[in-house]
């Protein structure tokens, strides 16, 4: 590595990123079928045909959620960068720099306030593309900020979780984000505003062991992997192959950990209705809901 690869290459990469991959083909991870990226993007990143729910970026998720794709971008607190001066095969500081270039985000969580079918809500989104959506000080401060914003402004809070777990490069400080985010959940609870968690693929580790499992309502996207220990760790521990569908959204519903499994096309309408009912807002006819393919009806 030299300064050229450190400084110039990421810049070139970020320049290239801005070009929309017009004629890119995407392979469905489930069926192997090839589909046009543009078709997938137009379908809220659900693969037409197989209904596989792909990961979705934080900004796209917020735009999909709020009326007219408009929202107030909540400024997030600054935190100490690389407090442990951590290095594994690479320096954590370099990994962070790369993740920022790759995603155009400061860290893994974004927070927005806007209207959802006319009702004001606060939402936070965890972007898996930013170091696996891992929970470090910055991401946790964002979640805390989101919960506090909802409590102060008196809005429901919607958390779109996606994470591999704690950010190991921040060591014990990442573990401390479990109780810290839980404090903020308690603040929202005391403000008596609904906390809705949307579990997306995948959500595991420290994130599920804290705020992602403390919602008033838990919704999971179809097929989402949700659990504390990852499947690989469990397989290594018990030396057995895991059953089909283990730790998937539908399995979690069967085992009482989520209230509903909702297709992404129905998510906005479901969230809007939930927020309205739980805040005793009058019914409105839901707008901007995409028709759901027959195969996705749950």
């Amino acid at each position, binding site marked *: 590595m030299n300064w050229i690869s450190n400084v110039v290459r990421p810049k070139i990469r970020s320049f290239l990123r801005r070009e929309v991959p017009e004629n890119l083909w995407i392979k469905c991870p489930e069926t192997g079928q090839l589909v046009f990226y543009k078709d997938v993007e137009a379908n809220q990143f659900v693969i037409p045909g197989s209904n596989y729910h792909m990961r979705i970026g934080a900004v796209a998720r917020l735009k999909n959620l709020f009326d007219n794709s408009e929202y107030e971008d909540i400024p997030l607190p600054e935190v100490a960068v690389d407090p442990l001066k*951590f*290095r594994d095969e690479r320096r954590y500081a370099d990994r962070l720099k790369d993740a920022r270039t790759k995603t155009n985000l400061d860290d893994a969580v974004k927070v927005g306030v806007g209207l959802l079918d006319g009702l004001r809500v606060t939402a936070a989104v965890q972007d898996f593309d930013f170091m696996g959506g891992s929970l470090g000080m910055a991401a946790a401060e964002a979640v805390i900020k989101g919960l506090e914003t909802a409590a102060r402004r008196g809005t429901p809070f919607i958390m779109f979780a996606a994470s591999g777990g704690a950010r190991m490069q921040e060591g014990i400080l990442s573990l401390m984000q479990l*109780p810290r985010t839980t404090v903020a959940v308690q603040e929202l609870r005391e403000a008596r505003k609904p906390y809705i968690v949307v579990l997306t693929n995948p959500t595991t580790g420290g994130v599920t062991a804290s705020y992602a499992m403390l919602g008033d309502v838990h919704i999971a996207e179809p097929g989402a992997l949700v659990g*504390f220990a990852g499947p690989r760790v*469990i397989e290594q521990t018990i030396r057995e192959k895991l059953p089909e569908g283990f730790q998937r959204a539908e399995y979690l519903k069967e085992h009482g950990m989520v209230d509903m499994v909702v297709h992404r096309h129905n998510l906005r309408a479901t969230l809007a209705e939930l927020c309205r009912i739980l805040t005793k807002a009058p019914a409105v006819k839901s707008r901007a809901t995409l028709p759901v393919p027959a195969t996705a009806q749950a």
Partner: protein
Amino acid sequence: MRSYLDFEKPVAELEAKVEELRTMQESGNAVGIEEEIARLEAKAKQALAELYADLTPWQKTQVARHPQRPHCLDVIGTLVTDFMPFAGDRKFGEDEAIVGGFGRFRGESICVIGHEKGSSTESRLKHNFGMARPEGYRKAVRLMDMADRFDIPVLALVDTAGAYPGIGAEERGQAEAIARSTDACLSLSVANVAVILGEGGSGGAIAIATANRVLMLEHAIYSVISPEGAASILWRDTSKAQDAATNMKITAQDLVRFGVIDDIVGEPIGGAHRDPAAAIAATGDAIAAAFTGLKHLDRAALRRQRREKFLAIGRSIV
């Protein structure tokens, strides 16, 4: 029989020599070797003190996991009188990886919750090596709720490699159980003190260690993932566990600097396993001091202090 860790080899050799001379002396085969024995003993003692004054994070990991290190039940057995262990989460089952109940600490009622690793093959299996399942955390929540209602302080004794990663544990909501337990700690309106006795492993530890005061034994470790786990994920090479232990900053001395723990409980020279009674006595004094320091806080203030303390962690690091 004393078991030695690999880095204790120089001490082991000196002590073996002392033992050998003693046997000779007792059988009357040697005379006038008292001086030699005393000299070697002093040398062994000094070597041990020097070694333990400067343990690497990996060496501390080994000490923290030492099979003869005092465990939760040893501490309870000495410090808590009239201990009455409770069983079950009232939902599914009993998990002996977490022991809990009520008793008296220095004459006053106390609720104790802790991970027990076990001390023989049989008891290790019984306690699942201190790796709890959801039932363990749900039992902890049950006990904390009770303690809160009866205005009895809570003591948490932490010693776990982490929560158990198994099919049944996942099926019954391991993540949710841990989250609810942390939540319960943060809801307490009574004082709670946590002591990291040996290993403070990840979510399985924080679930009961979210306390007004967090203490840590001098050679204990506390981390987000085991050094082996970090090595396998970040280095993709389990042999890098030593590097992971160093880089992750898992020692009591590092954590007091980050404000993650409040105080360090000194261990006897050569570690708690050399003199468990002394280690437990020091732990008892530290626990008493921690509770005394919280005496002036009323129920609302205790809750506030705990929340503010955790929210402040990391905010002053630049």
